[in-house]
């Protein structure tokens, strides 16, 4: 039951006292009544005046019980403010309480400002998670056996959540569209995973990890969630080592670390360039153990097509079996979306070919708010695009910036000669090279955060310093590190440290040890030896910080529907730091969701099995069937890829690394047109009830075509530059971002109302209790 404080009811005088009258809405048999309570304030002292409901009121007993509950809640807020010795104003009280949207027209006259309640526990930041865990509702082990949970997606977040939920005793149904849960795209994460273990003794702590993440995210993430993330990061490493994940170790047998962008400590744990693979296989093994015990039922080659809501709660999904092509119904007491990000909206990205937004978008259409869709991460070090046929881009891990130096020629004519193939980078002298990151950001150098490194590369290339045929590439050069490591090794081995051949050979060996698989990948794609020639790299779409809006419990605005991992929005603000995606996926899956979900499920212990033959399932399945029928019988003239590529071009050119008002308005119109054309002219071959990759793709692209519009709308409405969102209108003379904390320190959560660009905006104000909001500087 929500409490409302309206403008009208905020303050009035009663004699000498200032009074406030919050009210809540009581609903029974579709009848709603407002019940008022009153609060007295004098300076800092608040007291709650409990107003009894008249005994003549039929439901006086229940209403009074509600008032008592409200009283308790308000008193706990009053107490916490007293403890902190902070003044409690009606406005802050209002913010502490949920003020939800009022659905029915009969109470239209009540003007409430919609504010999202993130349900952040009160109390000091460092104690929030601990005390929340202590106060949360639990489900007893015997009751867990009667509760089903659906988990969509088996990447780090989905696999770890499935495994832990099953360990706890819930019955899990896990879904992935790939042929095995181990194929989820978390597997491709290269560089590492952060944890505030401080094994290197370089002054790391939970607070520092928290601080770096908030700052890296350009002050657009939710403080309490990020602190929790930092707090459980150490546990993740313990858990993974216990599972047999072979992290890199030093000669003493202890875990090794390296450094990533945007931080000044070494806190990244890694397994060569395959950290994601090793962590995912760890989570996959934990899943396998539960599959063997019968606690997880695994549905591979199944794609979620819709969520089913019963009485407003998420109670199941409709999935399409990719092998038979048939639609199937699955019920559960809660649905967890762990389907990853939507970077593939750009067509070309470092995501896997199948990565898509469909699961997130389907729940959005059914009532889950979508937050900050325009916050996209463009990763600075990817292999540049080589032609129109290209299907995807390949990332070169950020860890390479530990040992690689980024540069372009100082002289435009040199750059031109390089582009024409008339000059080799090896022939450009040291003094003729512009190490532009080291020049512009001396404190962090090559290890500035990703958004900054990407924009700097774009700036150089736009100004004519690019070094490949298309002029869209910069160098990532390892020669200095090869030399440095080689010398060190030669000294250690007692070899001649002045012999360049020996030094070179030894240095290459060290680099190979550290990044061998990445160098091999590069060589296979580009056909050039990166041990000799500097790598050519360019930014590419990599990760989406935006996603489904969730509260502190990771629940979306649909009761019983949760979103974890990259699919949600909460932890990375407008820019994610390297090696934090793995951390967040596993934190959500192993250590957060399995506990917070109990808070919701404690009401469901006597619900019993949810039937799939209800009218809600019928309707949901029917709507999916209609979409599939429409797509397959269209007989248009263009393939699905044709539309996906077109959408990608619009997104990259107009909503990419830098954005402006005109382009964004154009993008909205162009996407609208493209979507219309898609439904008119798309050609999907084959039948529904068979293995049909084209049909699966068509459904995904249809959703991207809606999301694109919302994405552009979100970027258009956010009139500031922050993190990965760079608006050309808001920059300093030397091209740095200008953030607007006064007007935009909030999360944009969009409610679906039909046309994506008409979506309704809900704001979650971001409050920073423990951190001073500053202009981000890496200089």
């Amino acid at each position, binding site marked *: 039951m929500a409490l409302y404080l309206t403008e009208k009811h905020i303050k009035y005088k009663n004699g000498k006292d200032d009074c406030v009258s919050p009210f809540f809405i009581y609903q029974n048999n579709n009848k709603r009544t407002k019940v008022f309570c009153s609060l007295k304030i004098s300076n800092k002292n608040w007291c709650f005046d409990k107003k009894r409901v008249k005994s003549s009121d039929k439901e006086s007993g229940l209403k009074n019980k509600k008032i008592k509950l409200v009283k308790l809640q308000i008193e706990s807020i009053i107490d916490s403010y007293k403890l902190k010795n902070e003044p409690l104003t009606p406005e802050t009280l209002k913010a502490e309480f949920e003020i939800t949207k009022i659905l029915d027209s009969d109470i239209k006259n009540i003007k409430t400002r919609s504010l999202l309640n993130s349900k952040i526990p009160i109390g000091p930041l460092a104690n929030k998670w601990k005390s929340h865990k202590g106060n949360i509702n639990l489900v007893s082990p015997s009751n867990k056996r009667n509760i089903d949970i659906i988990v969509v997606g088996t990447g780090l977040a989905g696999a770890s959540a499935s495994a*832990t939920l099953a*360990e706890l005793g819930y019955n899990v149904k896990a879904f992935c569209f790939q*042929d*095995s*849960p*181990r*194929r*989820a*795209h978390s*597997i*491709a994460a290269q560089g590492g995973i952060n944890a505030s273990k401080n094994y290197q003794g370089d002054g790391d702590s939970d607070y520092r990890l928290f601080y770096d993440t908030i700052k890296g995210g350009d002050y657009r993430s939710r403080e309490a969630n990020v602190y929790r993330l930092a707090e459980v990061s150490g*546990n993740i490493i*313990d*858990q*993974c080592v*216990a*599972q*047999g994940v*072979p*992290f890199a*170790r030093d000669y*003493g*047998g*202890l*875990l090794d670390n390296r450094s990533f962008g945007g931080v000044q400590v070494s806190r990244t744990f890694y*397994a060569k360039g395959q950290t*994601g*693979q*090793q962590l995912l296989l760890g989570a*996959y*093994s*934990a899943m*396998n153990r539960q*599959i*063997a015990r019968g606690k997880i039922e*695994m549905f*591979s080659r199944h794609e979620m097509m819709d969520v089913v809501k019963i009485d407003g709660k998420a109670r199941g999904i409709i999935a399409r079996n990719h*092998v038979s092509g048939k639609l199937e119904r699955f019920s559960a007491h809660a649905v967890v979306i762990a389907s990853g990000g939507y970077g593939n909206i750009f067509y070309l990205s470092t995501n*896997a*070919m*199948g990565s898509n937004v469909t699961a997130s978008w389907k729940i959005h259409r059914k009532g889950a708010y979508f937050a900050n869709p325009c916050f996209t991460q463009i990763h600075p070090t990817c292999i540049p695009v*080589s*032609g129109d*046929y290209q*299907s*995807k881009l*390949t*990332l070169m891990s950020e860890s390479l910036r530990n040992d690689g130096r980024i540069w372009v020629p100082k002289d435009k004519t040199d750059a031109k000669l390089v582009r024409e193939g008339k000059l080799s980078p090896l022939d450009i002298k040291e003094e003729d090279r512009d190490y532009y990151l080291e020049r512009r950001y001396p404190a962090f150098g090559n290890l500035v955060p990703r958004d900054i490194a990407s924009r700097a590369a774009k700036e150089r290339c736009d100004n004519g310093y690019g070094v490949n045929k298309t002029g869209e590439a910069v160098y990532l050069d390892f020669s200095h590190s090869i030399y440095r490591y080689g010398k060190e090794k030669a000294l250690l081995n007692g070899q001649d440290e002045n012999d360049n051949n020996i030094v070179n050979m030894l240095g290459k060996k060290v680099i190979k040890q550290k990044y061998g698989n990445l160098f*091999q*990948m590069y060589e*296979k794609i580009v*056909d050039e030896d990166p041990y000799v020639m500097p790598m050519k790299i360019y930014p590419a779409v990599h990760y989406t910080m935006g996603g489904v809006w969730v509260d502190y419990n990771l629940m979306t605005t649909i009761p019983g529907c949760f979103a974890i991992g990259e699919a949600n929005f909460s932890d990375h603000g407008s820019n994610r730091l390297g090696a934090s995606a793995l951390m967040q996926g596993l934190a959500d899956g*192993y250590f957060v969701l399995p506990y917070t979900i109990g808070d919701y499920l404690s009401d469901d212990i006597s619900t019993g099995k949810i039937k799939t033959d209800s009218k809600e399932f019928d309707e949901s399945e029917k709507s999916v069937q209609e979409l599939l029928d429409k797509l397959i019988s269209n007989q248009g003239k263009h*393939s699905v890829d*044709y539309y996906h590529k077109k959408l990608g071009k619009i997104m990259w050119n107009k909503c990419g690394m830098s954005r402006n008002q005109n382009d964004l308005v154009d993008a909205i119109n162009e996407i609208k047109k493209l979507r219309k054309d898609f439904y008119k002219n798309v*050609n999907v*071959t084959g039948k529904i009830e*068979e*293995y049909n990759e*084209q049909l699966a793709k068509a459904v995904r692209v249809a959703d991207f075509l809606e999301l694109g519009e919302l994405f552009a709308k979100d970027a258009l409405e956010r009139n500031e530059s922050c993190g990965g969102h760079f608006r050309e209108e808001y920059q300093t003379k030397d091209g740095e971002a200008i953030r607007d904390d006064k007007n935009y320190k909030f999360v944009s959560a969009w409610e679906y109302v039909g046309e994506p660009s008409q979506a309704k905006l809900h704001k979650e104000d971001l409050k920073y209790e423990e951190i001073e909001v500053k202009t981000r500087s890496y200089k």
Partner: protein
Amino acid sequence: MKLNLKIWRQKDNESKGNFEKYLIDDITPEMSFLEMLDILNEKLINENIDPISFDHDCREGICGSCSLFINGRAHGPDKGITTCQLHMRKFKDGDSIIIEPFRAKSFPIIKDLVVDRSAFDRIQHTGGYISINTSGNTQDANTIPIRKEDADNAFDAATCIGCGACVATCKNASAMLYVSAKVSQFSYLPQGKVEAKERVLNMVKQMDEEGFGNCTNTGACEVECPKGISIKNIARMNREFYKAKI
């Protein structure tokens, strides 16, 4: 360049398959092999012919989805890579390329070049894990030091991507390299020792039940493995197996 393609087409598991010939033009050396197939599929769609189905996802050689047998070799003519990392510069103008699915009794064909490798998952269910719960209070990760060499060996075994090239290549369709990679990984680590015996016995039993063949030490699996998983792992698994049997 111009290429003559001979590709295995099969409507579904029950139907009989056959090779179909396709001619393709304007392929450049920088394209990846799968991008070449994308272009062919785009052409087929525009002619209203059912495009060729093949498994693929990450297209950077790590997810293990892609699985083509190209000119008689798993993942094609290049070394140490998966099909998605194969580039057309490995072929010449006018070449004929034969593309088949990974063939093994335990990998039934779903459609065209897509096969069902769920037998691999089922083997993992029987022991490919360490029985540890997510409690949040396991001991600190640095409590047990592990020799760097052991950690590195465990890692090398753990890099298996589960693509099935070893099975497709083996004349006996044996899954020994795949199973041994997991057994080996855990055998190098102290955490894996506790359940070593049950693990190897159960995984080998399931491997046999799935219908994979035996190892006759031909070594083809090691040659074709895109991740260079060493055949030494098989020896190690055999040792673990005998140890468990005694």
